[in-house]
């Protein structure tokens, strides 16, 4: 005759087995999440190397920036608060002076630090800076300042991108048009990109600061621009000698917005920019 089994031992074994099953299920669910993440990353990578080309990519050469180089950009912004009933008042342009201040190491990458001074009349004239990767032309960080309760206060945002795909960057500072395209080789099939932004200096960790990063999908096309492209540029800003220095029209799309830039070979900055709110053109440059 067999001796009876201990009921407590039986319950214990059952509890352990069922808990093990539950944890295994939880782990499998998390694994599925990770697989989904990897799939998502794979999708992002695939998008960055998309075979679907919207238009033959004319390519865009990164400008040559030497320390000390300066140029001036003039911008005009739409009045977002204006009404049709109110008298039409011509928007007043603002000039910005750009200067390549120095080559600086930013979070392990050599970057041109470009300083931007506002030349407008009036008592709020923000000073801004952008850091552009020396090798790829990727906009790694910008810093500007805003008037707050009687003092100027800095604001900063930094950017990162998937490996091998320096993306175009659209910054939140749209009254000062500092969006930069991806400088891609002619014939490149890459026209879709992903980058992340975080409201903190480059190199800091978002989680440590209690911040959430945001991922942005951006498209870009670059096409050779003929003389017709000049028609959208105000007469005083139209570049000369386009035969020797051809024009490239770049269209950057993100979140329903489109930024149009016209670059001319040999110029440090786009000769014309339209981000839907602000139009800007290159006024002058100096060595």
């Amino acid at each position, binding site marked *: 005759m067999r001796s009876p089994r201990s*009921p407590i031992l*039986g*319950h214990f074994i*059952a509890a352990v087995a*069922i*808990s093990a099953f*539950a944890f295994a299920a*939880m782990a499998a669910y998390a694994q599925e999440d990770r697989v*989904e*993440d990897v799939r*998502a990353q794979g999708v*992002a990578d695939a998008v960055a190397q998309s075979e679907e080309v919207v238009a033959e990519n004319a390519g865009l050469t990164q400008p040559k920036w030497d320390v000390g180089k300066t140029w001036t950009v003039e911008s005009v*912004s739409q009045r*977002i*608060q204006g*009404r*049709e*009933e*109110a008298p039409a008042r011509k928007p007043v342009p*603002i000039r910005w002076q750009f200067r390549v201040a120095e080559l600086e190491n930013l979070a392990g990458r050599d970057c041109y630090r470009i300083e931007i001074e506002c030349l*407008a*009349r*009036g*008592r*709020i*004239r*923000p*000073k801004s800076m952008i850091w552009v990767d020396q090798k790829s032309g990727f906009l790694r960080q910008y810093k500007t*300042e*805003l*008037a*707050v*309760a*009687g*003092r*100027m*206060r*800095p*604001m*900063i*945002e930094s950017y990162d991108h998937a490996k091998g795909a320096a993306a175009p960057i659209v910054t*939140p*500072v*749209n*009254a*000062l048009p500092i969006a930069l395209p991806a400088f891609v080789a002619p014939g490149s099939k890459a026209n879709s990109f992903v980058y*992340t932004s975080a*409201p903190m200096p480059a190199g800091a960790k978002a989680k440590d*600061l*209690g*911040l*959430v*990063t*945001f*991922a*942005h*999908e951006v498209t870009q096309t670059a096409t050779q621009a003929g003389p017709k492209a000049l028609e959208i540029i105000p007469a005083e800003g139209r570049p000369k000698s386009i035969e020797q220095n051809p024009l490239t029209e770049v269209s950057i799309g*993100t*979140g*329903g917005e489109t930024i149009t830039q016209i670059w001319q070979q040999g110029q440090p900055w786009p000769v014309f920019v339209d981000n839907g709110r602000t139009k800007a053109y290159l006024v002058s440059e100096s060595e």
Partner: protein
Amino acid sequence: MNQRTVLTYLAAAIVAVAMGNQTASAQQDSGTAAEYPWSGYWWAHEDGGLTGPLAKYDKVFKTQTAAWERVEHVNRANVQSWFGHCHAWSAAAVTEKEPRKPRTFQGVEFGVGDLKGLLTAVHAQDEANSYGDRFGDRRGTEDKSDLSPDEVWRLLQLYVKQRNIPLIFDLEAGDEVWNYPVYQYEVNYTEVGNGVINGTMDLVVADDDVEPDYLGTQPGVYSYTFTCRMQNGSMVSGSGRWTGDSVDDHPDFAWYPYVARAENPGIDAVRVSQIVGTGVGGSDNPPDGDDMDHNSDDPPDDVDVPPSDDDTPGPADPVDFAGLLSPIEMVSLIANKTSHFGLDIFVDRNDGGKYRAGEPVRVAAESDKEGYLYLFDIDPQGKIHLVFPRPGEPNLIPANKLVDIPARDADPWFTAQGAGEHHLRGIVTTSPLTLTGFHTQIARKDKEKFHRGVQKMRVPPATQERISKAIDGFYGAKSVERKPTPKVKAFAQDDCLFFVTGKRSE
């Protein structure tokens, strides 16, 4: 071991796993600006705009700025009730120090309201960094939802959380523009699976519906719901969608002043800073003298703007959300039949009583518990008016005692207005509430028609539409109830009907 025991253990394990997942998913993100923007009047065009402060400026400098304001804003044809300088006040409220005392300059007395008005005039045409396309200006995409909730969240993180800077929003999704500086936010979100998150977003704003001489910040709160998607630990930009009532009621665009500009050609920032006594537009120090060449196209040399530094002050003490109700949250208390204890509300002519327009209405209330009494008149158009307490009035009532509003020997301030059926809704809460969205500044033309003390609700049209829908639904045939806001733990309510006959008294 029997089958029942096995199933019990299995159920317990499943509950444990589910709870673990739920706890991990619920998260919160919040931020507060370092300084609260100051509340100020929005200078309605139909109320004279900025002519008051500008007339004093003209007296000092022999200019014609008030005349310009009358021609360009006040006396134009088809001035609508929402036309004003809320954009300019918002810009001044975030960029400038608040004037706290009257000043006399060259023999002319300027009150706090005048000083705030002049700072408003300095910012009436600022260049701004703006986000989202303004709906209803017949330009751009004209997409009502182009400023997605994830973009709003990103901007709030960038400005309010990371740099403790307020951000101005147009909170009206439709054609009208209602600008408010947001200085605090709270996002509560939960991941519901496959990277999808559902969330609520509360924005605390500085209100502009105050007397011109108002000091400090009167808070307003606006609440929204949304969904968006995460991927690889980041929010996917553009994936957000407003949900529920927020589909039609959500922020339209956001902006922050970047370069200060006056609209009125006679206004000079240097002169304004001399009157105000502080630097204007980013400077602590007023300029010396008035020797600036105002006609020059060259930038001035005497720019006394101190350089920015990275020692950004930390966040100010956050406003306690616990008792601060947005108009929608307040309506959720009204539009339901929940009562945790007993409350009786009476009008002096009893339930169903009739009053002629202009006659006083006396109210009595008795609550089973001590608490804070709030009385609302819901008029025949479904509009909500706050009858009691009046601004600054104590409203704690004892338990089990009949309380008269007003006291028997006091003059009544609540009179019958608006012919038709009215509901007097009483609510008693066990902790005090801060109600937002009520009208403390009454436009001149309404002052005679509206009895002093009763506060009208003044919120953007889309929010008003949302409120009206909730009220109509509750008092309509189907009596649709709203879930009361979880911010209010225990409350009681009662409703009393009365009728107003005849026209509103003049």
